[in-house]
């Protein structure tokens, strides 16, 4: 069985998967009572898509927010490119579960907002935003307002906004959970295509096993209460060609069953 790996291919790429984000001994205790995360050690490799997978309440969002610098861990350290994280940084961009779009601003202004905060001039930031709005498939909608868009389209605006600041790492917190099933599938396929053009590191939070297996190079399984890394899975699935074919690929289906068998204990 021959499998071509998407990126990075260890055969011909010399720098074998280097860590862009290192997580060392993270503990997070809310209000001195709720232990959300316990002793998390992880590395996220450059150019890979890593999923954080686990049942609701296991601390996925907490971990992602700590990586993003939006939340402080109770103890432990996160390093991005070797530097400790003290807050949000230009090398990381966040895609929000509830989109977090400004309802009073057009698609273009929303997509260019990250650049606006960085002080990039209007002409330049709008040109750059226009490019990413087109890249996520929203060309022609630049002057629309969020309320004129469907949920899936709004999330694409959130993605364009994150892409426009040209961060190395894109963090997405259940980006497809607020959209319907068809839109979700289309979005997942588009994300695979997007990864072929944008060489970025993706960290994706999800509670869907299918989604994690479908999209990820690595899956970090978290166990609930307190959240711990229970297993790391590296699916080896060829994502070239027909996106629908992947969903019928026996390895894809087997892996979903394996992970489900492993998670079942926690859910029951």
């Amino acid at each position, binding site marked *: 069985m021959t499998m071509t790996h998407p990126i990075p291919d260890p055969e011909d790429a010399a720098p074998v998967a280097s860590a862009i984000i290192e997580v060392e001994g993270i503990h997070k205790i809310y209000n001195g009572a709720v232990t959300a995360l316990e002793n998390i050690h992880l590395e996220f490799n450059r150019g890979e898509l890593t999923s954080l997978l686990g049942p609701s309440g296991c601390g996925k969002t907490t971990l992602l927010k700590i990586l*993003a*610098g*939006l939340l402080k861990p109770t103890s432990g350290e996160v390093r991005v490119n070797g530097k400790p994280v003290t*807050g*949000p*940084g*230009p090398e990381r*961009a*966040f895609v*929000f579960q*509830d989109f*977090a779009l*400004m*309802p*009073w601003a057009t698609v273009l202004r929303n997509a260019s*907002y*990250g650049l*606006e*905060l*960085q002080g990039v001039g209007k002409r330049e930031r709008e040109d750059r935003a226009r490019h990413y709005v087109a890249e996520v498939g929203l060309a022609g909608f630049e002057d629309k*307002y969020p*309320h004129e868009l469907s949920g899936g389209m709004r999330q694409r605006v959130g993605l364009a*906004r994150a892409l426009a*600041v040209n961060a190395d790492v894109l963090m997405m917190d259940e980006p497809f959970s607020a959209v319907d099933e068809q839109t979700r599938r289309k979005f997942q396929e588009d994300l695979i295509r997007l990864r072929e053009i944008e060489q970025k590191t993706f960290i994706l939070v999800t509670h869907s096993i299918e989604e994690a297996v479908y999209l990820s190079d690595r899956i970090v399984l978290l166990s609930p209460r307190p959240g711990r890394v229970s297993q790391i899975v590296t699916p080896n699935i060829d994502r070239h060609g027909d996106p629908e074919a992947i969903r019928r690929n026996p390895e894809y289906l087997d892996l979903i069953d394996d992970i489900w068998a492993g998670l079942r204990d926690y859910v029951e």
Partner: protein
Amino acid sequence: MPADQTAHSPVAGVTSRWISAVSDVPAIWKILSLAILFAAWEIGGRTNFNWAFPTFLETMAALWEMIADGSMGAAYLRTLEPLVIGLVISLVIGVSAGVAMGLRKDAEWLTLPIFITMQAAPMAALIPLITFVYGIGLTSKVLAVVMLSMPVIAINSYKAVRNVPQSLVHMCHSFMGSRRQQILTVILPAASPMMFAGIRLGIAEGFSGVVLAELLITPTGIGDLITFNRSIAKFPHMYAAIFSIVALAVITVSLLHRLEVTLFRPEKRGA
């Protein structure tokens, strides 16, 4: 759901609640209900159930007479002075205090109780106190306007800032926006629709404040037209003066409401 609704709907006083209810109704219903109201007024006046109650047409004739002879215009020039000064003060201080209370815990602790007390206090009872301290001049009338309109403006500005979606604030932070950028590009724009709604209600309260002041402190302007015409039993003229100030308040607030929709509600604009 009800709790949520009160959290997101502006705080209003009696006048502002009534006037804004009027200005929220679609135009056709407004015209229809006005027609019914005026017809009922006309009929009521003709039945002579009260010797002092003029018919609608008599009132309109009196209104026209006062507009034509200039007494109405002169009265409004007097009335608008405390109203405008008071509203400007309420706007500047009310909005600033409201925003400060929304942004900072210490400002909230220090200032919010004052506005809540002011909002709950019966104004008509406080006016004699104002007169006692500040006399019967312009200052007292301005103060009456301020005391009615400022709490509504401040409390609504405060609630508006408090109701800004947290996810937008976090979004701004995650893209490395400074606190200043957060306030200017997210919090104030997100708060402005509700803030403006509060301002509209505050202006409605201001109208009621100025009339109260002109009736209870010294009769000037429109309050003078009302008291003077009552004293000489020219009831159509008295009602015409009352009618004119109510109409002016409703029209002003309706126009502000329309401005609010065009300014802040892309989702309500057009189709």
